[in-house]
């Protein structure tokens, strides 16, 4: 299955096929994140409200990182182009 996935991934035009990054990112690199989320909600001790607060903090950091970058780069665009 892995061989097949990597083989069909050799062409960048085959967007519908499973390609290397599909496995690398979603199958390997995200495993620590999956573990954290499972641990937060299914581990002991856990509390759904604090767990969702953690998810909210995660989401806010993504938004602030990429939102901040967006504002910075757009500002550079206005100033220089």
């Amino acid at each position, binding site marked *: 299955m892995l061989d097949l996935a990597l083989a069909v991934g050799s062409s960048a035009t085959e967007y519908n096929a499973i390609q290397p990054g599909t496995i690398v*990112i979603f199958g390997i*690199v995200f495993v620590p*994140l999956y573990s*954290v989320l499972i641990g937060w909600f299914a*581990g002991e001790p856990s509390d759904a409200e604090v767990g969702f*607060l953690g998810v909210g903090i*995660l989401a806010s950091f993504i938004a602030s990182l990429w939102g901040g970058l*967006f504002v*910075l780069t757009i500002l*550079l665009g206005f100033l220089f182009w």
Partner: protein
Amino acid sequence: MSLDAEPEDLVRPMRKPGKKYMIVGALATVGFLIFAVAYGFQLENGLAVTNLSDWGSGGGVTWGLYIGSFVWWVGIAHGGILVSAAARLFELEKYEPVARIAELLTIGALSMAGLMIVVHLGRPDRMVWSTVQSYPTTVHTSPLAWDLTVITLYFVMTGTYLSLTLRSDVYQLRDKLPNILSPVYSAVLFRYDPDEDPVAERMAWWLSLGIIVLAPLLLHGGVIPWLFQLTPSMPNWYGGLTAPQFLSAALTSAMGGVMFVAYIFRRVYDWEDVLPDEIFHGLGWWMGLFGLLWLWFQLQKLITGAYAPTRDVEPVVNTMLHSNVYWLAVGLVAVPLAYVAFQHFGILDFSVRGTVIAGVGVILGVLIDKTLFVVEGLIYASTRLYENVPGAYVPTPIEMASLLGTVSMIVLFFLGISKLVPIVELKAVKEHETETETGGD
């Protein structure tokens, strides 16, 4: 561990800024302004002012100090959170006082790594939109998209970790914190209930577990080196040894970075009791160990490339062997390694300042090595297309100004954050209090 500090000591940096604080702040602001002027000049006139844009026509390279610094900053960002995560996961109480400084170094250094990428773009205004638009397709095939993904993940997990561990401290020290920042503390304490502490502590533990796998194995020993080692046409980059080399360089420079920042706080706020000698002794030892690994990987690379190399590899290794700059980088790691080893085995007396200076040497050595690595990969490419325009690379003042700017911004970041939140976890002091009450060491 004997920690002779009180909770009040932890808020000492949050009091009125002193003369040293103002001087350091002024110097860092000047550094930042130099960067701003240089970057403005680059945006106005294009990347051509750095000579990084003309591979194939004018010779030279397209990647240089900017990408070298990017790799270097990501490496420094590494150790920070690893020190903290390891302290939590493996109950290494000795390093707890330095844990939050290390986490903050991770956030700051990672931001500077991202900034080096933005600075290296010809049209940064298109960056976010083009990245987001193409992401659904590029994530499947592009190591650059993987890189952005993992750096985002690392940043977000570190920030969440810091936020979760900060809430309890802010709550307990609230009456000692400056009133002017009340809105910030209210935001940090959003829906805070002291009963959540055991759950939040466990959530931080899970994050430590995730980070301790993600950071060394998948980020600096994974996606960052994959940016280079998956390129067969660059013999200096290609091959499985690149990842362990990157990781060892990252870990050794990161230990140096944590020691340096901790030492500055120790000196400025008389924190000999909060950040005692044994922390520096331990971090110095780890720095030496990771430095030894880095040297060993260099040996592997040189012996493979010097004995019976392929036609592509030969010029790269030959250049390394005859480059004074390369040997300077090796020396800047090897001498500190020997120094901390001599201290550890009792041949030399232990000195905090000496160990920190050794750490600064390692940091500089890794910066030089990373920049050489990037440049030599491009100069000695396997493709013969540009053979007649080999060129050379010397960092321009514009690029140097950007590096100065990121260092200055880190300084400003620490100056600012140390006024905002306690940079040593309250837990480190409270554990000592408990130990004292029970007659522990």
